[in-house]
């Protein structure tokens, strides 16, 4: 029998209380999945979390199985206007102060909630989802372990003549053989000059001796994502420029590991890596953010980016650290691991 995650619910109820509310409406597909697991397709349900329980209105098809699987949820089937159905539930439950996230509702539904005097609180779930529970961290670590094991496997599997696509297929299939349900995003394999394009789409280039190899991949294990990038030289005569860039990128990565602190903003942590690469003279070649939040989704909020001055990175937030240097048409290097924040700095998820 499936059960609601009590740790996550209690985190959400804390925020509801902190905002001075009695209840909060959650209708975003991935937010509902975060609380219940993968039950619905997008747009099939609306959830109302209040201090005494959880109300849910979903396609009537689900009513019977949901009642059996989640006895703690008050379920009502409804095939039209689930926002109005939710308003009725609010009245029946005599809830006074109800919130919704204007960023997650359509204009049609938001207007219905607004008319009832519900409060619009944007990004309500961001701090909750960013801060992983113990169980979530366990799954994130297991997911990362599969990715690291896959990297070790690929190092011995690679040989001259294989294409980028064949390599990506081997990565994907090895991850699945080792317990992953799927890749967490489309695996990127870039050989030689292709590594110079940070948005490269895996192609048919064949591997030759003395080429750069960039692998960016991850998997989903028990609904949780991993994400790693490694760049290395295939062959024994690494180019001088490659060695120089690789050292700078790795040091920028290590600098973040050493210096990032709990409570710093995403922008402050981004500046550690960016500052290092700029000081080394490659600032304009580091063309993306230092990292992104990660969890059930490969890209979550609370990013390590220049524009994220508002969201501090708190305890148990999970994120990638992935500095890179790209010289178009020639070479590129990215080095990425995922971490979680602790009171005493960041720890690798592994």
């Amino acid at each position, binding site marked *: 029998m499936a059960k609601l995650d009590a740790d996550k619910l209690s985190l959400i109820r804390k925020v509801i209380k902190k905002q001075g509310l009695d209840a909060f409406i959650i209708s975003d597909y991935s937010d509902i999945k975060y609380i219940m697991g993968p039950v619905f*397709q997008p747009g099939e349900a609306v959830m109302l979390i209040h201090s005494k329980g959880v109300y849910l209105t979903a396609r009537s*098809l689900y009513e019977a199985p949901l009642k059996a699987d989640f006895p703690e949820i008050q379920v009502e089937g409804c095939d039209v206007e689930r926002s109005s159905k939710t308003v009725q539930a609010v009245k029946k439950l005599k809830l006074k102060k109800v919130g919704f996230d204007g960023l997650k509702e359509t204009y049609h*539904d938001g*207007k219905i909630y607004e008319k009832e005097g519900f409060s619009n609180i944007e990004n309500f779930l961001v701090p909750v989802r960013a801060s992983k529970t113990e169980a979530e961290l366990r799954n994130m670590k297991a997911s990362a372990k599969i990715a690291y094991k896959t990297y070790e496997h690929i190092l011995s599997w690679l040989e001259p003549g294989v294409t980028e696509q064949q390599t990506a297929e081997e990565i994907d299939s090895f991850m699945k053989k080792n317990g992953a349900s799927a890749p967490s995003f489309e695996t990127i394999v870039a050989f030689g000059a292709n590594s110079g394009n940070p948005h490269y789409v895996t192609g048919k280039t064949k591997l030759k001796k003395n080429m750069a190899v960039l692998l960016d991949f991850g998997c989903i294990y028990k609904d949780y994502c991993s994400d790693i990038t490694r760049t290395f030289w295939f062959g024994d005569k690494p180019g001088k420029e490659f060695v120089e860039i690789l050292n700078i990128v790795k040091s920028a990565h290590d600098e973040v590991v050493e210096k990032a602190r709990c409570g710093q903003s995403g922008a402050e942590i981004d500046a550690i890596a960016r500052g290092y690469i700029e000081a080394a003279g490659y600032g304009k070649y580091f063309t993306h953010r230092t990292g992104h939040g990660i969890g059930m989704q490969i890209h979550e909020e609370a990013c390590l980016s220049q524009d994220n001055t508002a969201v501090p990175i708190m305890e148990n937030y999970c994120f990638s650290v992935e500095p890179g240097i790209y010289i178009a048409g020639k070479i590129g290097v990215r080095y990425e691991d995922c971490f979680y924040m602790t009171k005493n700095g960041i720890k690798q998820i592994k």
Partner: protein
Amino acid sequence: MKRNDEKIKNFQSYMKRKGIDACAVTDLDGVNFFADFSFAGQGDAYLLITRKKAYCFTKQMYAADLKKKAPYLALVDSLDCADIVKKARSLKAENCVFDAASTGYLAGKLFYESGFKEAAGLISEVKEEKTASEISRIKKACAISAKAYDIFRKKLKAGISEIEAASLLEGIMSDLGGQGLAFTTIMAFGANSANPHHINSSRKLKEGEVVLLDYGCKYGGYCSDITRTFWFGKNPSAEFSKTFDLVKAAHDEALKYVKAGAAAKEAHNRVCEFFDKNGKLAKYFIHGLGHSLGTAIHETPYLNPRSLSTLKTGNIVTVEPGLYFEGKFGIRYENTVLITDKSVKILTK
């Protein structure tokens, strides 16, 4: 597959007929539909479509690719909805609208307060009649899924889990040219097939039980949707065979009423009658008969008893009757079909 502005042009003639000067489109599916492009996430791009042009508000990062692949879009380097309003004003567009059913609350509020009118359901309405280019992409997505089924049947072996079998099937679609999944694959073994929205588990396949798979892929941004149910192993139970034949017959019966000019609820109601005539089984048919699909997996018109729509030439819908017996098994048989002037064409075969 070549990207084109056919859908923008069709929409512009629709706007002319309805007296609309400009329409703001901000939801990801709506933007990808009109732009004929695959933006990755909500908020990556917005459109303002006027009678003459389509302005695309997006990140600089997409600019080079868009100029090459979608030259029919006029690019604006901004993702601020206030700039959409400003643009409409600078063009002196008077009757401006947004779709209240798909536009986000905050963007909708801004548009409404700036004098744009609500046009609820506008985008889903214009998506209903597919263009030739859309039809050819859906056909291709359907052909890939149908072919994948044959290969999957040959590769399926006892001992595999539902999760592994789903990933085997997905790999076959990708090898055949599928570009990602249309929705989460449903792979149900044994009694799990009785839940129409089963979540794949680590349950392993045994000889002599039911397998139900409901899946689809994308091609050129468009979805396919197909369900097959079969008996794995020799000597299917008599109950399974009898029910299977009945569900298939219900599917064939339904196709008689899936045609241009028919009420969209007609086919669903006929299937219920058919099931009732054959053993009072309609109460085991617990969902709608079908839905349309396109860039999204669920589009209007729906083939269910609440539908007020009339079917038209160029609609592409699923026809998916099923019977579900809790604790025992479920059977669903589904095809994606195209409604033409004269007939209905099964695309998933």
